[in-house]
């Protein structure tokens, strides 16, 4: 039994979905790069390192005609995934307990491959194997998501990790985590005031306060946790026959948030794609990347012409305020859009929720609308996908997404847009009751309306 398998058998990784791993989203970004991925509705999807299967199950439930396969090295986690699949009756998902390095070559070809939270936490030789497996099992026009830890975001983190690991020594997971937390607190206290070292330790200390023990154990304190520079990943992927397409979210790939000064600095610093992206990480001090990869035989065009957006479905998570042009973003607070054309797009999208809107159906001059959408998407005010979402609006006898109902006690549930939604205990109790058999009471109306907006109701 490998050390990695042992660690995950001892303490399972928390169940959560990764929005960017939804084929409908990956396909949308691929299209912006001039790459037509397979239809997400009928795609074959492989989730490598699927853990207890939450991500894979949700993908399968959102696209019943697709096929989703999840593999993991931990038998305990695969058993949990199989049990959840049984409970929910998801016929188009399959789970297999198999070590990545032992994957048979006839395992099949996939249109979308997800390898999230894996690369940084496996030894060097397994990493090369992972890239080779992705390249080998990716369909000719397939798209893969690979996430990994990168420098320089780990410049301080690796130091903190090392001293936490040294303090904890070999012990049971809960002791390791407790001693590590203590060591980090001590280090913050003893570091010189006003030093970057102290600020870095204090920042990390604040960050891990919100980490569950399991998160900390499998992330920062993992047996292997090796960051790479982007240019190193790029060259390793190239050797395996994979080409870098872009990041798995449009704002991170489109660079609109960078600003002109930084873009000019990058032009001076980076002579080629790998160097430029590496220096971009250095400006933003990024610690993590989630990249979309294709087979090397594919051509990539990163001009992001607006016309490529017209067949995509778009939606927003912004909410209107009393002031015209002023919106509230759940993640970024208040947003003001002075351009009336942009506001018109957002208002249309908000009215259509929980459904998304086909971009070419949006009111206004089509060229201008598409142009504006690229900007809104690049700034993260809207999201886009291939194909309509399957969320229901408020009805007399609403049905909550069954995976959300199954997981509602955990406080974080997946919705039907493949996002994580936080639910408090009151919401959780109500969510569990919504199986389509009972009518919504007047007192519950407000909450159920929120569920509908949050994409938690099933048609």
């Amino acid at each position, binding site marked *: 039994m490998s050390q990695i398998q042992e660690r995950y058998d001892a303490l399972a990784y928390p169940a959560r979905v990764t929005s960017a791993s939804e084929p409908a989203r990956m396909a949308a970004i691929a299209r912006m790069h001039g790459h037509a991925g397979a239809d997400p509705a009928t795609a074959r999807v492989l989730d490598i390192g699927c853990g207890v299967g939450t991500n894979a199950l949700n993908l399968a439930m959102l696209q019943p005609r697709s096929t989703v396969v999840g593999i993991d090295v931990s038998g305990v986690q695969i058993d949990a995934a199989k049990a959840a699949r049984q409970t929910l009756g998801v016929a188009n998902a399959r789970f297999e307990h198999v070590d990545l390095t032992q994957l048979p070559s006839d395992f099949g070809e996939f249109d979308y491959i997800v390898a999230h939270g894996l690369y940084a936490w496996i030894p060097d030789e397994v990493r090369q194997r992972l890239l080779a497996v992705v390249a080998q099992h990716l369909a000719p026009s397939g798209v893969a998501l690979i996430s990994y830890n990168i*420098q*320089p*975001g780990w*410049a*301080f983190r*690796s*130091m*903190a990790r*090392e*001293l936490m690991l*040294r303090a904890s020594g070999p012990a049971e997971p809960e002791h390791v985590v407790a001693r590590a937390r203590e060591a980090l607190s001590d*280090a913050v206290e*003893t*570091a*010189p005031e006003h*030093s*970057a*070292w*102290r*600020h*870095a330790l204090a*920042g990390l200390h604040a960050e891990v306060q919100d980490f569950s023990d399991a998160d900390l154990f499998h992330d920062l304190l993992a047996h292997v946790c090796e960051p790479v*520079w982007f*240019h190193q990943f790029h060259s390793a992927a190239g050797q395996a026959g994979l080409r870098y397409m872009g990041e798995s979210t449009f704002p991170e790939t489109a660079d609109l948030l960078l600003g002109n*000064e*930084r873009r000019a*600095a990058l032009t*001076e*610093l980076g002579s080629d794609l790998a*160097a430029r992206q*590496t*220096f971009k990480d*250095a*400006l*933003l*001090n990024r610690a993590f990347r989630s990249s979309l990869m294709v087979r090397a035989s594919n051509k990539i065009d990163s001009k992001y012409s607006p016309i490529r957006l017209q067949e995509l479905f778009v939606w927003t998570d912004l909410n209107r305020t009393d002031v015209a042009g002023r919106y509230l973003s759940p993640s970024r607070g208040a947003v003001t859009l002075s351009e009336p054309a942009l506001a018109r797009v957002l208002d249309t999208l908000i009215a259509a929720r929980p459904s998304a809107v086909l971009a070419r159906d949006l009111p206004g001059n089509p060229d201008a609308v598409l142009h504006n959408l690229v900007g809104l998407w690049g700034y993260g005010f809207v999201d886009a996908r291939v194909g309509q979402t399957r969320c229901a609006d408020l009805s007399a006898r609403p049905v909550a997404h069954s995976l959300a109902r199954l997981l509602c006690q955990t406080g974080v549930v997946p919705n039907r847009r493949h996002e994580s939604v936080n639910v408090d205990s009151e919401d959780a109790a109500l969510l569990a009751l919504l199986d389509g058999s009972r009518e919504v009471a007047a007192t519950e109306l407000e909450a159920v309306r929120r569920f509908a907006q949050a994409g938690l109701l099933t048609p």
Partner: protein
Amino acid sequence: MQDTQTARRRYDELPYVARPYVDLHPDRLATEAALSGFAAPALEHASVLEIGCGVGVHLTLLAVEWPNAQFVGFDIAEVQIEAARDLARQLGVDNVRFEVMDLMELPRTYPTFDYILVHGLYSWVPTPVRDALMSVLRRHLAPTGVASVSLNTYPGWGPRRAMRDLMLLAARGSASPAETIKRGRRALQLLAQHSTRETPWHQTLNEHHAHLDELPDNYLFHDFLADVNQPVWLHEFIADCDAHSLSLLGPADVERLDVAEGRGFRHQCLVHSKRTPDSLKPRLDQLRIAGNLRVDGSDIVHDDGRLVSAGDAEVRSVLVQLSALRPLSLPMSQVLETSDSVRSAEALRARLIDLYRQGVVDLRLRPDRCVDYVSERPEVWSIARAFAAKGAFYTPNLRHEAVCLDEFHRVLVSLCDGAHTRQQLHAALAEVVTQTSDQALDQQLQHSLLKLSFDALLIA
């Protein structure tokens, strides 16, 4: 892997910056030994080896200071050894010998030395050379000898390594050291300027940009951007020492202290593991204490800008005394006499040693060579005058420190030969400095002579 040829070429193209390192003075090694309960050979007649001596400034200055001790330095770069020999000739020193030698090929018949100094090697050579270095220390350090090895350490080098990697990435394909340095510096500048504000990363980029901006190109090239620059955690270094039967001097929890401070560099003293502390306090009674401190109102401020917290009145009074005595040192025994019991004297000593570990005060065994007054015909020691006359970046002082001088002070230093009166100095400087009034120049001269005295440059 970096081979001898490459290393030699890198140093032949751009010699390493030449300066004395007080942390690498054999007297410091003897002090560290004394603090750990070991006697160390008397420096007056000691044999001293420097491995990787570069252009020999450090060793030649030691040879000037200790005319009856014997000094040997070797280096792989011929150009540097030639320069070292030239320097020794120029300064008329005959108790230092320089030779071209590859550490990997050092004959087993090579003699042993009382002190072995290794600066800028351990972290800057590939593993096999590192291994050879530790074996050489084990073999050629005299049984009662003390060695000092400098190394780059984590956690301080965590972010520095990231900066170095980025600078080297920006300098990829450079045709010359000059181009590597230029492109590396520019990359650091752009990153310092444009990285996300109010992050530790932005802070550290800007601190290092400011710091490296002041350092000469050869430091940047041979240290920060060296082909090999492999920092270690101190526990890894300790294991390496163990494997070669060498032990660290200093406090037992030295790694905890490094981590607390986020240190990235240290000079570490080593002795043979088989040695046991000689007696309870060998030479501790000979220790002297000094500090680059000044009193500012109720504060005590170190020259590096740190506010010093004295902790209690007894320590505070010692620090105030030291600030008044500058640049002279005080015998520790005299300091401890003020304590009213043996126990409180021990406690005071322990607190002063703590301050030494924090770099607030300096402990040493050797007596002062400088004076604390400015005479009518002030005299800067001859070596400093020779360096200043050559327009060197640093000027060595009488404490074996490198003092940075601007153009005005370089001229002043070269004029202070013990023959010129203050009035004559004024007249000579008036010809160089044209833009000031007589009175302003007078004030500046007075201030500057005091500074030369504080910087331990004046002799009787």
